C-alpha cells in the first residue's frame, strides 16, 4: 500500500471552464453579471426592467437558467439582443448553472454585438454560491416577502456578492421586513457589496441600479 499526496480542489474542473469563459468574454469586450436569488424574488422582472431602461445604451443578451420551460426566455425575447435558455432538468445537476453550461450558451451568441450578458441563474440560494460561471460580477436579489433573515440562513451566497438587491420595496407597508437589520447582516458578511433598494413593479430605485451597471461595464471594458 502506498500513499499519494493529492491536494487537488474538486471544483477545479468548473473553475477552469469558468476562467476560459471569462477570457472569451474579455476578448469580445463583453461584461457578464450572474444574477442569483431564491425562486420568485424577481430575477426575470428585474432583467426586463433593466433591458427596457438600458435600451439604446447597451446591447444586452440574456442567458436564462431554469430547471424546465422557456417561459422566462419568451418574456425577455423581444427586448434582448439575444436569448439563450438553458434547461438544467436533463443535466447532471439541475440546481444551479455551471460553467460548462455557460460555455455552450456563449457559442450561440453574437458576442461581437453584445456589451453585457445578464445570466439568470436557477432560483436557489445554496448551490449557485459554489459554482463560478466566469462572470465579472455576482448579484443576489432578496425580496421583502422572503424575510430579512436570508443572509443569516444562507450566508455563502451573500459573502461573495458584488451587489445585493432588496426587491419588491413597494410591499414594505404590508410585510415585516426590517431593512436596517438586513443591511446590517449584509455589511457584516460582506462590507464591499453595493446594496440597492428597488421595486421592479413600480420602477422605484431601478435608475440607481442601472447606473451601477453602466459604471461597471464602462470601467471594465471601456465602452458603452
Amino acid at each position, binding site marked *: *500500500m502506498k500513499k*499519494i499526496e493529492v491536494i487537488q480542489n*474538486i471544483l477545479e474542473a468548473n473553475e477552469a471552464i469558468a476562467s476560459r469563459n471569462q477570457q472569451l468574454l474579455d476578448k469580445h469586450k463583453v461584461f457578464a453579471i450572474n444574477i442569483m436569488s431564491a425562486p420568485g424574488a424577481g430575477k426575470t422582472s428585474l432583467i426586463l426592467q433593466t433591458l427596457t431602461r438600458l435600451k439604446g445604451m447597451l446591447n444586452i443578451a440574456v442567458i436564462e437558467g431554469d430547471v424546465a420551460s422557456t417561459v422566462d426566455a419568451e418574456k425577455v425575447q423581444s427586448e434582448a439582443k439575444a436569448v439563450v435558455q438553458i434547461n438544467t432538468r436533463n443535466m447532471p*445537476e439541475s440546481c444551479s448553472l455551471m460553467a460548462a453550461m455557460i460555455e455552450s450558451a456563449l457559442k450561440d451568441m453574437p458576442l461581437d454585438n453584445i456589451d453585457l450578458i445578464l445570466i439568470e441563474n436557477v432560483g436557489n440560494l445554496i448551490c449557485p454560491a*459554489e459554482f463560478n460561471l466566469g462572470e465579472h460580477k455576482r448579484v443576489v436579489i432578496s425580496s421583502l416577502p422572503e424575510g430579512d433573515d436570508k443572509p443569516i440562513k444562507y450566508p455563502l451566497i451573500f459573502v461573495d456578492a458584488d451587489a445585493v438587491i432588496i426587491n419588491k420595496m413597494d410591499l414594505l407597508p404590508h410585510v415585516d421586513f426590517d431593512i436596517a437589520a438586513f443591511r446590517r447582516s449584509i455589511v457584516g458578511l460582506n*462590507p464591499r457589496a453595493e446594496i440597492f433598494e428597488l421595486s421592479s413593479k413600480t420602477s422605484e430605485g431601478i435608475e440607481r441600479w442601472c447606473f451601477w451597471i453602466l459604471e461597471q461595464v464602462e470601467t471594465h471594458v471601456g465602452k458603452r
Partner: protein
Amino acid sequence: MHELGVTENIVNISLTKAGEAQAKKVIRINLVVGELSGFVPDCIQFYFDFLSKDTIAQGAVLHFESVPAQLRCRNCSMIFQPQDTLWSCPECGGQSVEIFTGRELYIESMEVE
C-alpha cells in the same frame, strides 16, 4: 443536490493520480470538506459507488475530514467558531466577520496498491 458532478470530478482525479502512480487499485481516498461548503458526504458516497463501478477505484473507502466553520472578526481579529446561525464575535460582539475556514473541498491524499 449537486454532488453528482462533484463526485465525477473525484473519480476522475483519483483515477488520473492512480494511473500516474501505476497503481492497480485505489484503496482509500481522503477528502477534506468544509462545514460551510454545501456538499453532503453521504450523497458523494452514493454517487461514488455508482460511478467507480468497473474502475480500479471500485470499492475504495471515501474518508471525509470535516473542517469546522471558523470566522474572523473584522473588528478585533478574533477567530471563532460561530454558534448556530448568529455570526457575531464572542469577544467584542462585532457583527462584521469573514470566513476563515469551512469552505474547503479537496482531495487531500489517496492510498493505492
